[in-house]
């Protein structure tokens, strides 16, 4: 189902969305940088932006995610699950980020499903904005996650100039565009063909950033990446975990009890497979004590055929955030290229 909406009418639509739930959109922060945040009024939404450094995954998988409340009365403990049932609209997220959330949801849906995550995801409506001009560091075209989407969204907007094309792909999407008479008109054939043209143009606009997953996948999956290469690459890793925190598809976590004296909140916390303690056992034994083993693990999880078969995708949406955050340049395209060429920075 496709509609168009006039540019000026978006405000009215956003007002309607604000009445029915929390709206999260890219806004300009106090220091001028762009970030995803809950908005109070439609004017806060920015339309021309490059992706914020942090993906919107925190709205389905908060960095500190309360999952169980624990209370102590004398010697007796009571536990209750903690759910977040807030209805949320994620507005103007880029294609890669919409795909990132679709990836996380697939992971948490896998049996046994994770009720805590799914409650939040089921209440989230994703309204994505297709990228007419890809961002300089993006390589979503290599991961099938942009610049335009064919799935992974509830509503996809395309900027047609004076109006937006509004593609609706789900019941949640239908709900988001209903109840506002006269705002949405059925899309004309002209509008649909304009979208197709824009998609083709966008694909021709990619800059040098590319990621040839196939040959790297073949080597990673069959253990044919020399140990010495992992070691050399891992020499550049500072073990900061920035790649994991900024990655839309990273979902590793730890569980901790926060609080004190009789009331605790058991929380799921983001964790990083690049931290030495990630696999440290109580006995002191650590199966991935060396940085090279942890780096190998990260790329096995994201690029191996074993995971590709399970997940039907690589664990990357081509957003380019790891290129931006990594201080040691061990980002996805660089590591994939090194594996393909068999050398690192030579």
């Amino acid at each position: 189902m496709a509609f168009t909406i006039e540019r000026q009418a978006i405000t009215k639509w956003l007002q309607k969305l604000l009445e029915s739930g929390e709206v999260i959109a890219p806004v300009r922060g106090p220091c001028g940088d762009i970030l995803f945040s809950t908005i109070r009024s439609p004017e806060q939404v920015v339309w021309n932006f490059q992706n914020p450094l942090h993906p919107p995954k925190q709205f389905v998988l908060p960095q500190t995610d309360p999952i169980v409340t624990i209370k102590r009365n004398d010697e007796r403990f009571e536990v209750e699950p903690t759910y977040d049932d807030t209805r949320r609209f994620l507005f103007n997220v880029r294609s890669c980020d919409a795909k990132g959330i679709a990836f996380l949801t697939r992971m948490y849906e896998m049996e046994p499903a994770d009720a805590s995550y799914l409650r939040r995801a089921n209440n989230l409506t994703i309204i994505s904005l297709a990228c007419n001009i890809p961002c300089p560091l993006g390589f979503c075209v290599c991961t099938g996650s942009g610049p335009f989407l064919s799935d992974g969204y509830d509503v996809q907007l395309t900027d047609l100039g004076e109006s937006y094309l509004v593609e609706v792909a789900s019941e949640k999407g239908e709900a988001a565009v209903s109840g506002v008479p006269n705002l949405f008109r059925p899309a004309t054939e002209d509008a649909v063909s304009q979208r197709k043209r824009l998609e083709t143009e966008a694909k021709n606009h990619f800059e040098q950033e590319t990621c040839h997953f196939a040959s790297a996948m073949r080597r990673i999956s069959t253990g044919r990446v020399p140990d010495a290469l992992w070691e050399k690459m891992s020499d550049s890793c500072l073990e900061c975990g920035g790649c994991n925190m900024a990655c839309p598809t990273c979902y590793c976590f730890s569980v901790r009890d926060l609080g004190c004296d009789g009331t605790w909140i058991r929380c799921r916390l983001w964790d990083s497979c690049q931290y030495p303690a990630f696999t440290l056992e109580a006995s002191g034994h650590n199966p991935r004590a060396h940085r090279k083993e942890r780096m190998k693990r990260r790329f096995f999880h994201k690029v191996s055929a074993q995971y590709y078969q399970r997940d039907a995708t690589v664990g990357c949406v081509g957003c380019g955030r790891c290129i931006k955050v990594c201080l040691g340049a061990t980002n996805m395209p660089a590591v994939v290229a090194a594996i393909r060429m068999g050398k690192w920075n030579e």
Partner: protein
Amino acid sequence: MNDTFLPDIARLLDVRDETPDTKTFTLRFRDLKNAGPFHFLPGQFLELSVFGYGEAPFCIASSPTRPHTLETTVRRTGQLTTALHRLGNGEEVGVRGPFGNGFDVEAAHGKDLLFVAGGIGLPPLRSLIWNVLDERSRFGKVTILYGARTPADLVYKQELEEWGKRSDVEFHVTVDMADSNWTGNVGVVSTLFQQISLKPESTLAYVCGPPIMIRFVVHDLLALGFKEEAVISTLERMMQCGIGKCNHCAIGHRYVCRDGPVFNYSQIRELVE
């Protein structure tokens, strides 16, 4: 929708000292809805909560043939286990589970069984051992070999004595370093192979202990003619969620918490780090 991370409350019925740093905890679910039998397989594990300290995985050390209480044997090594060791009778903990695949008990029907345990590696095998002994007629010859660093490090001392006395069990125990009261075997557990006769073609071997001990024992078993599929172990990894989501225990694309922790040696060799 299920409450993925919600623990059930259990009370400690008994806390027993095994060694200076290891205790066995007997648990029973507090709330009525869980008062019935708790279904599990030997080799499966629990996520045990010590409230305020979080939760950690521990194998179930009791047998499913005795379903009204659960036992777990825990060595004091970190914050959570230290806090657990401070708890006494009547105090409450949280339990999630059971998790993991467990031992395939039916596949062992009619077979001779060899158990080889080192130190704190006995608890997961104890669950299977009592399961087998409680249904003794279904299984062939049962041999148990147990080794620990010193006599003080032996767990379940009373049960070891009982196994030693039973005519339907061949039991041998050894220590790496004897003390003045020890009159038994001295040496690593694999030296006990000299004292027993095995039929590798009809025997399943269950091995659990420290990584170095597993390596030597598996090597010896294969040399004795055991097939890789007949050598079964239970792996240990840092585990948090128990359901294959948090990724701590991943080895390649397998998850010790969900695909394991029980693997045969042929499967273990296929795990690529």
